[in-house]
């Protein structure tokens, strides 16, 4: 079944177009990796999927489980099962991590017509998820991301993902800045959640993460669109050769697309 279908997506910020006609289809059960050089629009794609208002979609469509995603407010997208692991997780002072997650989970459950989970059941549920990402108990009770180290913040994102149990998870450079041990923990978190009911889009700059999370499909993104798609071996190829060839090809394509009169 098709989980996400993006067609000819054009989006940008303050008049500058960043996504320039992106197509992507993710089926349930699949793990897609999107790789590309800095500035290719990977994070913009993640933000547009989550519904950040700063980005304006000027053309194209995003269909999520048959629905027009662009019509939905960001919190509704989350309640419908889309999760974004932030590249730069945000601090929420004064609100404990566990309290925050309980409020979030209950907002999602309410949306789905489920009963709110009570504090005791929630704590038991959370404990089981903590083990997967090796979260220290202390981080549960600290304000969300406040005073967390870089690695703790990233692990916390995966922890949020575990607790909120999304249908489509988008990980935006979750691997950047992680040491190998933290990287393994993040990968284990993702692998433990792989299922035929769920899809993943893993955005990364490096091939390294894909040693631990083996993707079904690898895309190369350059200049705001997907320029090549292949299997997991494509990642290794990129690692060896870099993005140079793709970048030059994209430049040529962009030039060719320009009207001759300029």
């Amino acid at each position, binding site marked *: 079944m098709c989980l996400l279908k993006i067609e000819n997506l054009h989006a940008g910020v303050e008049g500058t177009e960043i996504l320039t006609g992106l197509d992507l289809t993710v089926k349930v059960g699949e793990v897609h990796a999107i790789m590309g050089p800095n500035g290719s629009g990977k994070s913009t794609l993640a933000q547009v999927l*989550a519904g950040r208002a700063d980005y304006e979609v000027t053309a194209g469509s995003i269909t999520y489980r048959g629905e027009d995603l662009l019509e939905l*407010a960001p919190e509704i997208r*989350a309640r419908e099962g889309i*999760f974004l692991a932030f590249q730069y997780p945000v601090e*929420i002072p*004064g609100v404990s991590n566990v309290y925050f997650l309980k409020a*979030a989970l209950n907002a999602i459950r309410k949306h789905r017509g489920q009963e709110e989970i009570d504090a005791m059941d929630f704590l038991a549920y959370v404990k089981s998820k903590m083990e997967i990402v090796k979260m220290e108990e202390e981080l549960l009770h600290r304000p969300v991301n406040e005073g967390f180290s870089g690695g703790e913040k990233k692990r916390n994102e995966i922890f949020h993902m575990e607790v909120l149990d999304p249908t489509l998870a988008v990980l935006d450079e979750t691997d950047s800045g992680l040491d190998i041990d933290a990287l393994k923990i993040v990968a284990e978190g993702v692998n433990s959640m792989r299922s035929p009911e769920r899809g993943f889009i893993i955005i990364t700059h490096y091939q390294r993460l894909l040693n631990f999370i083996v993707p079904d499909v690898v895309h190369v993104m350059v200049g705001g669109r997907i320029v090549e798609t292949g299997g997991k071996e494509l990642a290794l190829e990129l690692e060896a050769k870099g993005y140079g060839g793709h970048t030059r090809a994209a430049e040529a394509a962009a030039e060719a697309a320009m009207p001759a009169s300029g």
Partner: protein
Amino acid sequence: MPLSGTEIIDQEVAQEYKWGFVTDIEQETLPPGLDEGVVRFISAKKDEPEWMLEWRLKAYRHWLTLEEPHWPNVTYPEIDYQAMIYWAAPKKAGDGPQSLDDIDPEILATYNKLGIPLEEQKMLAGVAVDAVFDSVSVATTFKDRLAEAGVIFCPISEAIREHPELVKKYLGSVVPSGDNFFAALNAAVFSDGSFVYIPAGVRCPMELSTYFRINAQNTGQFERTLIIAEKGSHVSYLEGCTAPKRDENQLHAAVVEIYAHEDAEVKYSTVQNWYPGDPKTGKGGIYNFVTKRGICAGARSKISWTQVETGSAITWKYPSVILKGDDSTGEFYSVAVTKGFQQADTGTKMIHVGKNTRSTIISKGISAGRGQNTYRGQVKILKNADGARNFSQCDSMLIGDRCGAHTFPYIDVQNTTAQMEHEASTSKIGEDQLFYCASRGLDAEDALSLIVNGFCKEVFKELPMEFAVEARRLLEVSLEGSVG
């Protein structure tokens, strides 16, 4: 297209003030203006003894020599004290209500609308209410039950007539009639307020509560509250305030005095929700210029101020404690919200005089819209105050990018054994946080409520339970639409 944080903030800020209705009752008012005649008129209306009139006149004459202070971090057009009405009262037959049946049903309806259950059967168990409507106190409930315990809880005008020895002894003992410009004005023209006396060793059997309501137009409200806690007594007191929406500014210059004897404990909580003015233009709203001070006169006594300030165009108040008795404790817990065009300059003074005195200050300022929020606090340790300790924490939260937070802590330590701690922080609820919350399924309102309540929880836990709920709700309502 989803709304941006700023758009959501604007929506929240534009929320309607829900207590802005006007009650249509017959009013007896003086023409605008202030002179000795007005002071005499008020005193005569209240049937006051000669000494009380003299006290007022002395204050009035002193007031004439004072200048309105302009050091707070707020701006407003000049106040014309001659354009204001100093006496407005609901017209009624006889000397005053003998029971709830004598009260104008319109006023009762007003208090019901405000959620203040004057009718005893509907009341929150254990809360006695004194209600002040414009200049006069309209009803005090549970008087009989309190009297059994020896507690006096009545309008101050009644106390002046019936308990002159107590009023004479304590009135002005903590806030002298010439203390400052607004306190002097209040001393001259105060028309009512609450009086509380807790005898030695008595634990007041219920929460005491006063609701203040300004109704009449162009009227100043000058209430005066006096709380006396004898040796080893205990009382918790709460005041709430609302006013109708009006285009002109109205002045509220109240005075609260608390006198705590040995081992006495007084907890004073305020939920202030005066009309803040039009959120879009800043027009109208209450000028809340208030002097509140308590003295821990006896050893081991304790005074605790908790305030949730969400209303008023301008708030200017510094509930303070003079820690005179050895081992006495002063506390100040404050949440101040400014949105729209509101300005607040608020904080506390803790004056350590006695030995081993302790004070705690927790101040939480929230600014949204174009609101300006200033914390101003003074901690003074006098020469003989050996072993004094203070802990201060001043946190500011900014919602949106057009508001401001300012902190002015003054610390004056004259004794080297003092221990002082000061913590301060400023945080901002921005689009990043709102979007992060949204990405987890929380809408703007949920997110704001979560963040703001998290920010204020140390103060809310100091409020009596049912009022903590009320304060949370008030905060949610007043910031509704402020953010996402």
